[in-house]
């Protein structure tokens, strides 16, 4: 099981704070997870399309599209940060 959490504009576009999903074993990277989510959850697909500049964190650490994801991870997807 992977927990996917959304923030800010992406969260509002998805309409959910988080999803708990169990993708197939072929989904091993952030990019593959996004593709799989987009296919399975149309609202997520539309939200990702509407947010082409994105950041990702795995278990609260910034990561990249090619970073590995595994069962038990929390994957956060969000627009570029604007704090400060």
């Amino acid at each position, binding site marked *: 099981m992977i927990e996917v*959490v959304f*923030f*800010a*504009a992406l969260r509002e576009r998805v309409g959910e704070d988080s999803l708990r999903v169990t993708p197939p074993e072929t989904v091993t990277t952030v990019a593959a997870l996004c593709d799989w989510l987009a296919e399975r959850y149309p609202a997520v697909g539309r939200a990702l399309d509407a947010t082409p*500049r994105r*950041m990702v*964190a795995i278990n*609260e*650490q*910034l990561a990249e599209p090619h970073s590995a994801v595994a069962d038990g991870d929390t994957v*956060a997807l*969000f*627009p*570029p*940060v*604007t*704090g*400060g």
Partner: protein
Amino acid sequence: MTRIDVAITAEPLESRLSSEGRDGRSGAEVRFSGRVRDEAGQVRALFLEHYPGMTERALRRIGEHARERWPLNAIEMIHRVGEIRVGEEIVRVVVWAGHRQAAFEACAFLMDVLKSQVPLWKKELTDDGWHWVEARERDAEAAARWMAPSSEGAR
């Protein structure tokens, strides 16, 4: 060892003043306060969303990077979340060091990196209602200047 204090709060920052730096080790204290601009009357308030837990970890991590890079005595970082009015402090970063150059550089570094790596997002209230603030290219550039060893800011 350089103390690093981080905090996220929904209360005004104004009352939080540190007593750090009075022990004779720190000749220099550099404090940055970021406040809500009204953008010529366009903006009435801000709302700050964050990623609880990761925000604190990310602040602590950038503090650790700063203390590896400069000789510092202490770092305090506090960021406000929730609704914030025009003129109020959004963020405060304070750095104590023996000498001023390290304190200035580390404080500017922390702000630049905070703006590109810490999971916080701003929403503005204007006459048209609430809308998300877009990330600015120049903030990404400001953070990137600390990465290139030959660059101005990285010295």
